[in-house]
């Protein structure tokens, strides 16, 4: 058995529920690899997830794990982080979980810049319920609730995160594992609200509905269409037309919420009241 | 001897009638009475009509709201007209001098110059509730002067303490006249 699987996964919880070819398994493995590389104590890692395919992953990992309600992972994580700032809080959520039903918590946690790493396992579809279009389903693509092609414009998660105030924003993919692991490490270490748009693949629903081929074809598409953010800066809009920009897209430091709250406590205890 | 007072204070939002009843309740509490204070709110913070009330008793207060008031103090005509019907026939109506007492009222009436005192003597409209409180307590004798002064000072901003003590004194004098 892979030593990482042995060390970080709950053996009695496996096998996982993911379909053959699903990208989520790869992303789970990327996360434990990042934790391993950072040498974090398992007791100090807390994984919070919402509802959907992405969010089932929390249960497989041998950390402090909580699988919450649909859209609310970031809000639950906010309570955990404030109450116990020493925990490394990692949120695993999906495109629908984070940006549709949980969109309000996503933007407000970003505004507060509360320290947590939010990994959006983005498969462009509601997989658990059988293939309905999501806020990241590209316009014109199909889902069971978009039988004529979706007329909804889609969210670009890194742009959304940056606009709302996130201080570390990146995109990884299932194909680019080494890069994605490094991004996860940096997101976990970053003192502030970090978001990684983790491009997964859903051959079962999104792929099938949209004639994207099998899992290998979908991952091959990632290989052929992704451009690193550093390279993208040198490319023209025309060259970037059908490209997906990956890597770190935004990073800056500003006051972090739990640190500021601790300062507030110190100030109040110092006799301000 | 048993003591029981059901007092209602009414005016327009922003005049501080709620705070007025809170202060009177705290003064009565300091004198050893049982007290309950409550209010009804309109949605607007300023300008709407506002009613607050206290029950002061030497015994346990079972029902916390006033059905029939022993005393109504009104600072606006609208408040006076609205609540005078719920004053006991042997009760007291305290009204600003500028107000017209409805013909239906035949009981004891005390008219006091609260509004003109606030504008002409103190020149501070914000003191209206404290001036009224000085006069109300002089009429009703709920609490001693010291207990009332302490209750006022505990509830108003520190920087306005002196002004409010003057307001209280001006209010007291209004009844002595």
């Amino acid at each position, binding site marked *: 058995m892979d030593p990482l699987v042995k060390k970080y996964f709950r053996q009695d919880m496996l096998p996982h529920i993911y379909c053959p070819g699903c990208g989520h398994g790869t992303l789970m493995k990327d996360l434990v690899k990042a934790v391993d590389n950072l040498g974090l104590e398992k007791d100090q890692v807390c994984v919070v997830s919402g509802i959907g395919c992405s969010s089932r992953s929390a249960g497989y990992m041998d950390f*402090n794990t909580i699988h919450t309600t649909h859209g609310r992972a970031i809000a639950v994580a906010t309570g955990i982080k404030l109450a*116990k700032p020493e925990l490394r809080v990692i949120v695993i959520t999906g495109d629908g979980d984070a940006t549709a039903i949980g969109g309000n918590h996503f933007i407000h946690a970003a505004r507060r810049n509360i320290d947590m790493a939010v990994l959006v396992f983005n498969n462009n579809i509601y997989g658990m319920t059988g293939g309905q279009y999501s806020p990241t389903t590209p316009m014109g693509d199909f889902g069971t609730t978009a039988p004529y092609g979706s007329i909804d414009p889609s969210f670009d998660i890194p742009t959304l995160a940056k606009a709302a105030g996130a201080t570390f924003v990146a995109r990884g993919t299932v194909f680019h594992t080494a890069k994605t692991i490094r991004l996860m490490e940096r997101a976990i270490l970053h003192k502030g609200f970090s978001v990684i748009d983790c491009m997964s693949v859903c051959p079962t629903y999104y792929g099938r509905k949209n004639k994207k081929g099998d899992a290998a074809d979908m991952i091959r598409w990632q290989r052929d269409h992704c451009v690193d953010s550093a390279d993208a800066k040198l490319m023209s809009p025309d060259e970037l037309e059908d490209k997906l920009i990956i890597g770190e897209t935004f990073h800056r430091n500003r006051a972090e919420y739990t640190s500021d709250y601790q300062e507030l406590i110190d100030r109040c*205890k110092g006799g301000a009241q | 001897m048993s003591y029981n007072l059901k007092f209602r204070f009414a005016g327009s939002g922003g005049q501080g009638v709620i705070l007025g009843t809170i202060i009177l309740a705290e003064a009565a509490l300091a004198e050893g009475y049982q*007290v309950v204070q409550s209010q009804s709110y309109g949605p607007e913070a300023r300008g709407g009509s506002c009613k607050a009330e206290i029950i002061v008793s030497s015994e346990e207060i079972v029902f916390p709201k006033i059905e029939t008031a022993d005393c109504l103090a009104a600072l606006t005509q609208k408040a006076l007209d609205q609540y005078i019907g719920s004053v006991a026939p042997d009760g007291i109506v305290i009204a600003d001098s500028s107000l017209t007492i409805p013909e239906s009222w035949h009981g004891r009436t005390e008219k006091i110059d609260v509004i003109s005192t606030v504008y002409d003597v103190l020149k501070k409209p914000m003191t209206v509730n404290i001036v009224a409180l000085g006069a109300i307590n002089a009429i009703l004798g709920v609490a001693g002067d010291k207990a009332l002064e302490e209750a006022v000072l505990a509830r108003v901003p520190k920087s306005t303490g002196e002004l409010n003590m003057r307001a209280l004194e001006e209010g007291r004098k209004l009844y002595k006249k």
Partner: protein
Amino acid sequence: MSGKRVLMQGNEACVEGALAAGMRFYAGYPITPSTEIAELSALRLPVLGGHFIQMEDEIGSMAAVIGASVAGTKAMTATSGPGFSLKQENIGYAAMAEVPCVIVNVQRVGPSTGMPTSTAQGDIMQCRWGTHGDHPVITIAPSSVSEVYTEIIRAFNLSEKYRVPVIFLMDETVGHMREGIEIPDPDSYQVIDRAMPDKKGDNWRPFAVDSEKDVPKLPPFGMGWRYHITGLTHDERGYPTSSPEKSAAFISRLMNKLALNRDDIISCDSYMLEDADIAVICIGSIGRSAKEAVNRARAKGIKAGVFRPVTVWPFPDKEVTELAKKVKRIVVAEQNCGQIVLEVERCVRGACPVTFKGKANGSMLMPDEILAAIEGGEN
């Protein structure tokens, strides 16, 4: 502060009592008539090293409370009708995942936005059945400012002891009135903290108990016991299951956790019931109207009394069944169109007539209105 008599608002007493019980986390969203609870929590918590956060919405507030509790902090939120509706899914999660927490609902007139500054008791059934699915829940309704203080402590204690969400059901009348109260001495009440597990063995099962009367000993996150919490039906390990056998064992344990301990949870207030022919049953602030009505009835020679469930859920069913055998008639007085009366009728089982007196227009149900129901059998 203890020993001294102070003038305190119901909403203030809710915060002070909660702090005395050990509340150190508050998440909320502004809503009338509960807002003073958030305001005072914001003022007091940081001074005590605790945390206050104004969340982006009611749902997030409930979620953050769950998170803080999972991390080991006693946590509370406060709201009113519209917000209480929004919190329901996560209240169900707290019941399912056995996360201790206290939800204060200062009731106002509904449905919908209703009358935000006016009193009501229209959320009694929502406390019991507001979230979907069968679930255990405790609800406590205080009738005075001093009872707010002591009962919010009991609410936290029950929440910690039984690992359930406890709904603290106030109404606008109790929330906004001020009374002179004596702050209880800390030696006069008990503060209960959730039980910690024994040393972790190899086969530790977080949700395993010896009997259905017991409560799982779940440690806070970050203390060396790594386990999984989920809103999915789960087994003793906390792992999701769809096995009918495991699911049956799970729901039986969850429901019996309260059912088998009901005597420890239920608290009722009785007034002049010893020789009563007529019992008035009511909750919260209407207990005050009812006592006054009974005093007036007694002055007229009518033997009436008051039975007031302080613990509303679980409903004191046995107590009401017994009461119905002793009195000639029961009057149920509520600030709504009829909710507790449904429970009363269920428990009375025809043993005596039940008269309902309700009011839902935002003005308080007055003593004389209840007196009329006592005298006339008005229906």
